[in-house]
């Protein structure tokens, strides 16, 4: 049975085994490579995408679990222009090797959508992805900067 879902705003029918993890359907079948394989046990978060707006690790999430749902990858958020998190990431020059960064950007974007001004403790609790280059100090600054950018955008919109 093909699995139907919305991927980055467009309907998609995936003809894959039900148990195939969404990560591999995204990378192999939809051919979008911004979402990364890191551990395969949902520990590192490199495979994070949004499922109905929630940051979700996809390396152990079967495709059948996202039938009818709205899936957004890093390519999806980028297609609308750089969001505040991406702008802040570039401004603070966060990425080093860059491999884990899509996952972090997706996780932080989902966090700020829900909680526009998280405390350090809330960030610590929500952002549990792993980065081997140790970009955490720059990341912390970038998250604060993204909050600021979002505030500026809201003010501008008023």
């Amino acid at each position: 049975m093909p699995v139907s879902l919305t991927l980055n705003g467009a309907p998609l029918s995936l003809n894959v085994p039900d148990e195939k993890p969404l990560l591999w359907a995204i990378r192999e079948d939809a051919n979008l490579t911004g979402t990364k394989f890191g551990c395969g046990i949902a520990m590192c978060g490199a495979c994070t995408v949004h499922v109905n707006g929630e940051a979700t690790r996809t390396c152990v999430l079967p495709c059948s679990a996202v039938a009818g749902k709205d899936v957004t990858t890093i390519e999806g958020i980028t297609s609308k222009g750089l969001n505040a998190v991406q702008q802040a990431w570039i401004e603070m020059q966060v990425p080093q090797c860059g491999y884990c960064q899509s996952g972090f950007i997706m996780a932080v974007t989902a966090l700020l959508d829900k909680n526009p001004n998280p405390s350090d403790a809330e960030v610590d609790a929500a952002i549990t992805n792993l980065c081997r280059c140790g970009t955490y100090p720059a990341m912390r600054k970038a998250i604060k900067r993204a909050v600021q950018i979002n505030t500026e955008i809201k003010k501008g919109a008023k």
Partner: protein
Amino acid sequence: MARSETSKPKSSLRRNILIGSAWVGGGLAVAASIGGTLAWRRVANAQKFMFPADNAKSEASFNAWLKIAPDSTVTVAVPRQDMGQGIYTMLAMLVAEELDADWTKVKPEQAPVNPIYGNLTMLVDGAPPAMKSMMGVVSKVLGVQATGGSTSTRDAWVPMRAAAASARAMLLMVAATKWSVPVGELTIAKSIITHAKSGKSAPFGEFAKEAAVLPVPPAITPKPQSEWKLLGTSPKRTDVHDKSIGKAQFGIDVRLDGMLYAAVKHIDLVQGELQAVRWKKGAAPKNVMHEVRGPDWFAVIGKSYWEMQQALQDVELVAGGANAVMLSSPQLSSLYERILNGEDEGLKPLAKPLRRTFESKGNALRTIAATDLKQRIEANYSVPFLAHATMEPMNCTAQIASGKVDVWVGNQAPTIASWLAASAAGVSSDDVKVHTPYLGGGFGRRADMEVVRQALACAKVTGGKPVQVIWSREEDVKHDAYRPAVACKMSAAFDEKGGVGAWYHRIAGPSVTKAYVKRLNPMLAGDDPPDKTNCEGAADAPYRSAIANFHVDHAQVDLPVPMGYWRSVGHSFNAFFVESFVDEIANALKKDSYLFRLELLKDVPRFAKVLDAAASAAKWNTPLTPIAGGKVGRGIAIAESFKSIVAQVVDVEIIGGKQIKLRRVVSAVDCGFALDPENVKAQIASAAIYGLTAALKGKITLKESQVEQSNFNDYGLLSLAEAPEFETVIVNSGEALGGIGEVGLPPVIPALANAIFSASGKRLREMPFVLG
């Protein structure tokens, strides 16, 4: 100095004849500062290989290092690999500075594989002193393009600036001729050449085609530091935008027409042979298109990596063979202890150790033996095997078609990748094209390229179709080329003045270089030259200047374990040994950790200055804010590695007597001059977090030659919540350039150990650090 011949393009033959006299003169003056004839020889050769120009873009190639398009886009050949350290940006900056190019129009690009790009600095740095002169004549080794040893910028410093400076002179010559003005009156800013007096100006790209075929001018010297505009600043990295939108391409992202995927499983043993393959259901699943058997691995090829990974769950690999030597971690610890106590025999499964003295002055052993027990101190330290755990698992894509081989692999040595591919495919390395995308982490791991051999073995059976081999995280953790487990015994005697009269440091461990070379090519591993990495940071510890009797020796053992270079290599353990022990001595003498080090560093003022900078930035004497239900502590350490000096102060909290919480790391770094200060700070924090991760979580253990860890659940990484605050101060001494990618790692581990001691009174001599 308008020249009539400038309007007529010259043949490359003429250029190459001219270059022999022209560049050598210009290059020597510059190269003398970094020593030796190797550097200028390469400058002289810079035009024997031209960076291939893209004719569709009408690019003009000036030499091996850069080409310029009519729209003034400068494409820089970067012969080093970007694993996150930002080397694409840094080497492009060297060229942009000399050309006064508009930074937004400078594009780094991975250089092709060619001996001109060989990393001479890495070779000279890594070689034992006696071999250095000989190294210069080993032409094959000379041409190895590799990234490691924190050498990339140091190695590029002469040739890339000289290449850009000569291109600048050639561009100016054409502009001067066309405008009939003296070349000395021309200036360049943001890629635009201007003649102020006449008001003429034009982007330099307009002159590129004619300039590139000019004879290379003699006596080129790079800009003096006083004229730098870009170096010493931190422009936006060239890769950060693409890495923030999911567009940067890593090896695992390579997609080719008809590409197949392969999943690999190694035998359970870290070293041994694959003897049999047994499918639990009698045969491979139907979606397996090909099965490939290697010496100690097995791969299945199909249309989906995930499906192939699933298929491997149904296979059992039988391991054994003469190559299989059983070793367990507790057993290795006790063997090390016996070796440190001087035993040479009966150490099965290890052979007799090869003992060597790396540094000796006075008579440390005799002095210590003759000193009253109360005036001596002795301690043993040990560190475990460590995996690199790059975020991007090992992978390689290969295609063999019409006798030509293409390899796409995140690697730290494209030359070696080409050798491995050529040998596996049975072609000449001239028929191999290595494509190097961004590396999802390197840290030394991607210098070891078993995965290239595997990809080629797979590509041989796919009938010309490309195949991408991917390792699971479990394969990566269980089959790394590990940082070795190492142990040491240290002893010291105090003198009457409250200083250190004698220092004896005995280290037991394998030679990483020997292990690496053996994996690369067993034929090359016959000799046992001294491996500088065994004792780096110990034999040359800065305190030796203040200690009359100083001795460092090493007992080298061959371990039946795959091992390789791990960020900062020997410094990753020797700094822990030396800087912890110095702290133990300070404590025994009831002296302040910082002031005691200063005393010992009085004859090496460059070190003292860096130590002062760290202590002052950390407000060493200001007490830490106490916490309820816990203790706080502060530790300091200093280490030189890769020609840079770093001192670090770590503040720590011990909660409930057990939990170690990192509060802050203050670093001071002297790398000569910080060419990109923000990246220097980013790299210091990066390496420090890599070191702190090892200090608090890193442990690969063996049980009967099987690795007990498998993934991030049992080989953990520091998280955002666990990472401390960072502050880094830069000390620009103006000394020769040092490395940056690894240097923030060595001292942070002992600084943490010393902080834990200051908080808890417990001296942790074994990594990773566990309290309670």
